[in-house]
């Protein structure tokens, strides 16, 4: 069995300036924080980041969270997301032109990523027809109904989070941390899984895992639950 267990810093060794990365989670709930920290330590620049949102900004009492760490460190030049309102640093970056932001409806984002991982040429969605979300996109009519053709999204790296994983990379993300972690596991060249619990193969019933380890390139243990 290939040894996929790495430290966070080893797992981002091949991450380079200008790459496109996906980060799982929803407002940082379900984002792999150790992996975000490792990217900040490596200091790669001009990343295009695909994720639901801009994560959470630093506050008086806590560090930034999730994608917010990458934004706060100035590593992101383009963000593809559905909502950035909870991180004012994204808005500031957009205003001063340092950060480009493509806003995509959340369901479209999920399906475009899934399409990227599932070998589809895109998806047809009725969401956004007649709105700004349709700009620059082909409209296709099927049985008299209009759909936006949304092309698939893929990335060089996906950084995702699990609650339980085994050493082969089979994993599950608990409760509302699943978010984009499952679709992103399929859509990137290199998939880095940060996990809270790391189990021996066979230690837990195989039926507990939701996603196969065959998608996972590297496994990094040591994620801890967010401390309020």
């Amino acid at each position, binding site marked *: 069995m290939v040894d996929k267990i790495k430290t966070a810093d080893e797992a981002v060794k091949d991450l380079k300036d200008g790459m496109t990365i996906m980060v799982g989670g929803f407002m940082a709930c379900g984002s792999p924080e150790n992996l975000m920290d490792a990217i900040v330590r490596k200091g790669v620049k001009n990343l295009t980041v695909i994720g639901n949102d801009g994560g959470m900004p630093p506050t008086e009492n806590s560090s930034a969270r999730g994608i917010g760490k990458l934004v706060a460190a100035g590593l992101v030049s383009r963000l593809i997301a559905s909502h950035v*309102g909870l991180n004012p640093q994204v808005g500031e970056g957009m205003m001063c032109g340092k950060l480009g932001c493509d806003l995509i409806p959340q369901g479209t984002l999920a399906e475009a990523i899934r399409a990227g991982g599932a070998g589809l040429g895109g998806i047809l969605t009725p969401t956004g027809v007649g709105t700004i979300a349709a700009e620059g996109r082909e409209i296709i009519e099927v049985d008299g109904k209009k759909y936006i053709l949304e092309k698939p999204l893929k990335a060089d790296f996906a950084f995702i989070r699990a609650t339980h994983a085994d050493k082969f990379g089979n994993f599950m993300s608990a409760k509302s941390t699943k978010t984009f972690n499952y679709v992103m596991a399929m859509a990137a060249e290199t998939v880095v899984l940060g996990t809270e619990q790391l189990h021996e193969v066979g230690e837990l019933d195989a039926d507990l895992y939701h996603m196969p380890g065959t998608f996972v390139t590297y496994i990094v243990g040591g994620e801890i639950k967010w401390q309020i």
Partner: protein
Amino acid sequence: MADIKHRIAKRVAQEFKDGYVANLGIGLPTLVSNYLPEGVDVILQSENGFTGISGAAEPGKEDVDVINAGAGYVTYEKRACFFDSALSFAIIRGGHLDATVLGAMEVDEKGNLANWIVPGKMVAGMGGAMDLVTGAKKVIIAMQHTQKGAHKILKECTLPYTALNVVDLIVTEMGVMEVTEDGIVLKELHPDFSLDDIKAATGCELIISKDLKPMEVE
């Protein structure tokens, strides 16, 4: 102000039928769950990935793995089920939601909705709103009738659209309005207001229903 919000939420709650699967937006729409009629069992969906979302978590008892779509810590029912974003939006877009309740900046007489962007202001993003109003079987807009006197119910939206021809019902502190092919029909008028009041507060023609009723909330 608080009274008005609760009045709107109480009236929206009367629209819910037993067995509904519904999604409530953050803010005023969330209040609707407090006022469901007796015997009406509704399961609420949270777009970040579960059915069976319940109230806010008590301070000190938060489960950090369970948030709502506004990043607030919440609780969940015993019958809850958690899933990923693709499945969550299959529920939303695929016609598996009986109703969604959202706020609006503008609604027009064609049922067009604008609730996500004001040009020149900081953009938050549409999040799940476009999918929700496109996919839900019934789209209920719960909002104050005007924005400090400025019309929000219009002949044509002036702000960028969230979606076209999607709004079914508008509930405000002044009344209940149904969007039809002929235009916006006033079905119920709150006793605090006259027909002239609501017409003056509305930026398009209001068709007065033949069986106009008082908007009744306790």
